[in-house]
């Protein structure tokens, strides 16, 4: 029998017992809904955890340093002169490693800031200043902050942390480091100009009387840069792996153009003849699972690397187990619903005995009869599955709304705990059809086995 005939016959047979088949389909729908609601919660929580870990910058960043700087007592000791310097050449080579998204220097200097709070005289403040790449705007720090991110990579703008904002306004320290400024306090800082004083490294000619081995090719010049404060954040974005956290942040392009004197420049005083080097480079990869491979490639180039082990695989494993158990609980209702299908189809076989006999008498094979009941089970599974996905989606949405309402009441940021991906929609409907077909196995086999002579005698 052709598939379209089977679908048509299944559809018309199901329409003949509307109430019974609708209730059975509803039963499947409720089963699938519980499965979808459970799994969408698991998927949503995994997504939330993965997103938050991803936006922390902990698991997709590698800190690269030169072996000239970090040599442990027990490690093989390469000669300092043999160790590769972390310079522009190595920075360029890292960008060419597959899956590397960007390579930025870890620019971190202590600067002096001059700021006049409203109605007060200009005062001096010292703060660690760090450079931020444009990608830092995706950090979780910027999910809840005051002001805005830099308008460009080279603009003279600054983002500060809350406690530095308090220091600028001469406010007492807060008990909580990440306590926000009030909107009035923020307005006294945001958009205001601050003067950044730093030491610039300038190329210089050799002093005439210096010995070659004592020569340095730069001089240090005192400089000032006006910056506009555009944002206030709780802590340094992607700063989890930095020992000396910044309190003021400037765009990466601007920081590089300022040519501020770095600790690595001191090495040049000790080892004249070496060009400009970096104290550390931060290599960011596309996915946390790619960190190890990129790290190996960098190590092979002769550098020291540091990264936090990929936690995402452990998290994925945890959520797989969680999803498995949630799926089992969700499937229980579907298992009960499948008993409904078996019951409905056995009833149909009993009621339609004579019809089965007629069909066999006019040429239906056992396979045709089996297929008709199979398709009926499949159609119920398809409709039940679709209904269940819609129902599960609605239940998840209601749970999410309820949870977020509660979180807002608790002054917490709303989150999306629940998520129905397309694969779950397809898998739930597919699973529903498979379960329905399995439930239809016995009734279909029973219908196919009916003796046509006996069936035709049935009244």
């Amino acid at each position, binding site marked *: *029998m*052709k598939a*379209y*005939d089977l679908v048509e*016959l299944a559809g*018309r*047979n199901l329409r*003949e017992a509307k109430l019974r088949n609708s209730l059975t389909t509803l039963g499947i729908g409720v089963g699938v809904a519980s499965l979808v609601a459970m799994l969408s919660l698991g998927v949503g929580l995994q997504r939330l955890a993965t997103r938050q870990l991803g936006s922390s910058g902990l698991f997709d960043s590698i800190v690269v340093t030169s072996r000239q700087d970090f040599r442990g007592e027990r490690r093989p000791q390469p000669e300092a002169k043999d160790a590769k310097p972390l310079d522009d050449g190595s920075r360029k080579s890292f960008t060419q490693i597959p899956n590397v998204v960007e390579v930025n220097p870890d620019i971190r200097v202590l600067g002096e800031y001059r700021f006049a709070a409203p109605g007060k005289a200009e005062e001096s403040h010292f703060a660690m200043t760090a450079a931020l790449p444009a990608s830092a705007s995706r950090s979780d720090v910027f999910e809840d902050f005051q002001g805005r991110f830099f308008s460009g990579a080279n603009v003279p703008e600054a983002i500060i942390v809350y406690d530095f904002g308090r220091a600028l306004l001469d406010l007492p320290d807060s008990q909580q480091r990440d306590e926000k400024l009030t909107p009035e306090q923020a307005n006294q800082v945001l958009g205001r100009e601050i003067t950044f004083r730093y030491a610039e490294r300038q190329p210089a000619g050799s002093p005439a009387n210096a010995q070659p081995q004592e020569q340095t090719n730069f001089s240090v010049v005192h400089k000032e840069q006006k910056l506009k404060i555009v944002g206030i954040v709780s802590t340094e974005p992607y700063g989890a792996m930095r020992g000396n956290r910044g309190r003021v942040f400037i765009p990466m392009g601007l920081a590089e153009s300022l040519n501020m004197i770095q600790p690595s420049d001191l090495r040049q005083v000790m080892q004249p003849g070496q060009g400009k080097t970096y104290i550390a480079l931060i290599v960011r990869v596309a996915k946390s699972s790619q960190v190890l491979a990129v790290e190996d490639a960098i190590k092979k180039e002769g550098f020291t690397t540091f990264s936090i082990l990929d936690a995402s695989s452990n998290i994925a494993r945890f959520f797989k187990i969680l999803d498995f158990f949630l799926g089992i609980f969700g499937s229980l209702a579907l298992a009960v619903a499948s008993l409904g299908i078996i019951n409905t189809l056995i009833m149909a076989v009993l009621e339609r005995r*004579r*019809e089965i*006999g*007629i*069909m*066999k*008498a*006019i*040429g*239906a*094979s*056992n*396979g*045709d009869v089996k297929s008709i009941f199979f398709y009926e089970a499949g159609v119920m599974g398809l409709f039940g599955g679709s209904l269940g996905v819609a129902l599960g989606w609605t239940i998840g949405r209601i749970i999410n709304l309820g949870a977020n309402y509660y979180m807002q009441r608790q002054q917490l940021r709303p989150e999306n705990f629940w998520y129905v991906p397309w694969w779950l929609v397809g898998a739930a409907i597919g699973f529903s059809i498979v379960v329905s077909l399995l439930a239809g196995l016995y009734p279909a086999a029973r219908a196919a086995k009916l003796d*046509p*002579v006996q069936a*035709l005698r049935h009244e």
Partner: protein
Amino acid sequence: MDSFNAGAVRTESLVRHYHLGQSIIRAVDGVSLSVKKGEFAALLGASGSGKSTLMNLLAGLDHATSGSITVEGQNLATLDPNQLAQYRRHTVGMVFQSFNLVPTMTLTENVELPMRFAEVERRERDARVQEALSQVGLSGRLEHRPSEMSGGEQQRAALARALVNRPKLLLADEPTGNLDSKTGTEILDLIRKLNQTLEMTVIMVTHERALADRYADRLIFLGDGKLINETVNVAGGAR
């Protein structure tokens, strides 16, 4: 080729026994008969004589305990269940006393049903339904269900359903049993006409001797599962 070998239907020592508790029911007990191509044969006998069992065996709905049945060159004993289904689709058409239309289907859908099993292309089905309906003289109430039709209309519809796959053999089990005499005569006139115009072999079970005498070419008498007598009916064949 003699008339025996040219038979459309031939049974040899056909036996069908049923077990009922400890006892054995000999429903068909060593029947050997032959029906020629295009012949209209009537199976006659009292209730319990084995007429319907023999009909079910000829239709491939039941299996013989022993002996053989050959229909249009096919030995039914050698066919597997799928081949028997094929045989019922293409070689035989059946008409029953109680019409046996599917009650949830309309007249058109009932007539179309055998073509679904025979996997006839959809575009061809409409034409064949119309052809079968015109052969049995049905033109109205096509979208009505069996419960909304008269007995005569239902039997005509059943006849159209039996004809739609163009079978070579029509098996009619008491086709007039549930009809009044006038309608019964109309149906048998129709079957006889189809037998003559389509050269279709017809085997009809009946316990009404008068009808058999009037329409059949040959009368086959059964009693207690055995073939009692077989006569050529010139009067029936002459109609």
